[in-house]
């Protein structure tokens, strides 16, 4: 397999960023990782994952949809869309890479969301195989192998070298564009590292989490479960889980009056917020119980019902570590799963 030695990784980053915008994961001053535009001298984060998911690249927290000029009774619509620049994202984990296929199912289904599609088409996703999963990881429950992630190119590290594996046509082109920096390498040590990671995977505290109790056919059963009252009791109704989630894709469309025009923007929204479904009269989800239920039903029941059984969760574990009251999808799944 083609590889580059670890000490040359930064020169590879320099070479890529000379041609197109490159984003890598870096550690911030507080020790948590985030995606940053690569500038010479930055080092790749050793953390397992970023706090904010990689969905930002395709579905940013806010984006302008259109501008309006209003003069008297006349309205002019200004299309503000621009062709996205080509960019590379380096260091995406298997879970986040899978989240893109889930987001694709929403945004690329008819009618196609051109804002999302534009950025998606101009991106090259370089994933990073996991070697040290955390206790909060449960991607294997959703059928992923984090040691061989999806994406356009998958990168594996054996500690000394980074190995490159093409996974799509786009990835093939990308590897060709950097092939002068890569050399053939022996994967014996890599295989060892992967074997070790797979063994750890089996020992994870959530390794036995099962999705077999969920899916579209359980809609009414889970919806009417009595467990929701207890599960949602402590929920604060904040949007942390939805905003750090790589697959949460609900949005709001709002207008902002700049004083010299109207900007219509879309921004992330959360089904946990009380105004999510609020209408001029009434609200179809009045209590936090209903809103809490909606989020988990969407991921575990509604999404698979509409997408051939694929779940709307990738097991990245962000909600496990970030919920202010430590209520999360794992606790929900364990409470709702069929006993016996």
């Amino acid at each position, binding site marked *: 397999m083609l590889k580059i030695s670890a000490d040359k990784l930064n020169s590879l980053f320099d070479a890529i960023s000379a041609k197109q915008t490159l984003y890598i994961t870096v550690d911030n001053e507080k020790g948590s990782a985030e995606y940053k535009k690569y500038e010479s001298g930055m080092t790749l984060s050793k953390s397992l994952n970023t706090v904010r998911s990689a969905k930002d690249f395709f579905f940013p927290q806010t984006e302008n949809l259109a501008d309006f000029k209003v003069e008297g009774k006349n309205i002019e619509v200004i299309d503000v869309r621009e062709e996205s620049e080509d960019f590379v994202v380096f260091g995406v984990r298997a879970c986040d890479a899978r989240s893109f296929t889930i987001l694709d199912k929403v945004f690329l289904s008819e009618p196609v969301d051109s804002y999302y599609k534009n950025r998606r088409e101009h991106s090259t996703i370089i994933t990073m195989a996991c070697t040290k999963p955390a*206790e909060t990881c449960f991607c294997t429950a959703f059928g992923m192998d984090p040691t061989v992630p999806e994406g356009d190119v998958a990168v594996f590290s054996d500690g000394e070298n980074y190995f490159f594996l093409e996974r799509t046509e786009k990835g093939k082109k990308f590897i060709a564009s950097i092939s002068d920096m890569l050399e053939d390498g022996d994967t014996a040590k890599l295989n060892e590292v992967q074997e070790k990671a797979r063994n750890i995977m089996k020992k994870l505290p959530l390794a036995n989490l099962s999705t077999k109790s969920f899916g579209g056919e359980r809609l009414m059963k889970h919806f009417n479960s009595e467990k929701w009252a207890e599960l949602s009791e402590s929920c*604060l109704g*904040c*949007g*942390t889980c939805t905003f750090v989630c790589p697959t949460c894709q609900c949005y709001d469309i709002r207008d902002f009056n700049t004083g010299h025009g109207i900007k219509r923007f879309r921004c992330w929204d959360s089904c946990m917020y009380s105004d999510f479904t609020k209408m001029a009269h009434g609200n179809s989800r009045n209590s936090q119980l209903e809103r809490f239920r909606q989020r988990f039903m969407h991921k575990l029941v509604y999404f698979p019902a509409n997408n051939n059984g694929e779940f709307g969760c990738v097991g990245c574990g962000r909600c496990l570590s970030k919920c*202010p009251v430590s209520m999360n999808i794992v606790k929900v799944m364990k409470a709702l799963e069929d006993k016996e």
Partner: protein
Amino acid sequence: MQEAMIKRAKELLADGTVNRVIGWKKGEFFYDATPAVFRTAEELDRQFIFDDFTQANVSKYLVKESRKDGKILAFLKPCDTYSFNQLVKEHRIIRENVYVVGVPGGPKLDIEKIKAKGITGVLSVKNENYTLKIETLYGTEEMPFYEAISGKCESCKSKKHVAYDELIGEDGEVLESNRFDMVEKLENMTAEERFNFWQNELSKCIRCNACRNVCPACTCENCVFDNPKSGVDNKAPADSFEEKMFHIIRAFHVAGRCTDCGECSRVCPQNIPLHLLNRKFIKDINSLYGEYQAGADTTTKAPLNDYNTDDCEPSIVHERGVE
């Protein structure tokens, strides 16, 4: 401590003093306890937990819980009692419907601080003579206990319970705390340095509203940021102005009522030091209008609901500190 609390809770349930208990419920791991209401002795035995990681302040839940039928038993740490008192003062909690048992406070530990050390795959933590022995998927790690202390406990203001019906363990004292150190440090920076500091911090905000929703002082039925007619674009950090506006107003709305419980910073997924904004107000109030600790009692007037005819003029801001 946990056993004593469960035992006492069971007694109070059995003799009918209370019909519910609010506390912390065991999670998937050793560190992710969830605030929960327990109704039976059996639930308490099975799930009740009180340890180094039960940080959450449960007093805000009492706003709703104290309006339900019957009395509820609440285990409150010293800092939680300040929030509790403040809510009683504002008539948000119905005091008669809560039976408060004061329990010792921290220092509590913060798993994020352990993970920030690069320790991953944690399975259990043991405290041996103030050294944490951390069992992980990748072997045993060690770190000093004090380095894992949660931010809110690092600058603890008081170990005294200001409201309780009974105590388990001994009551503590109000402490000399260093909580204004960082505020002072910022005050001594130049305006530009301060601006850059906050620009960097606040630009991380994702507007999840966790700080607002967890805050025991934020108990409005309908927040101004949830009211579309207010013209404030909630949810959307569309421009750096939005986050500044949100955080200034959030802190301002609780100025004089914030007990400095530190929950806002604890829950922030982006680790923004939000408590500094609140402490700035507390420090200003203390220095300009006399020492005041929100929640210390249920009778004194809040500083922003009060005035003296000889209060200082706002121009004092221009006269002190660094421009």
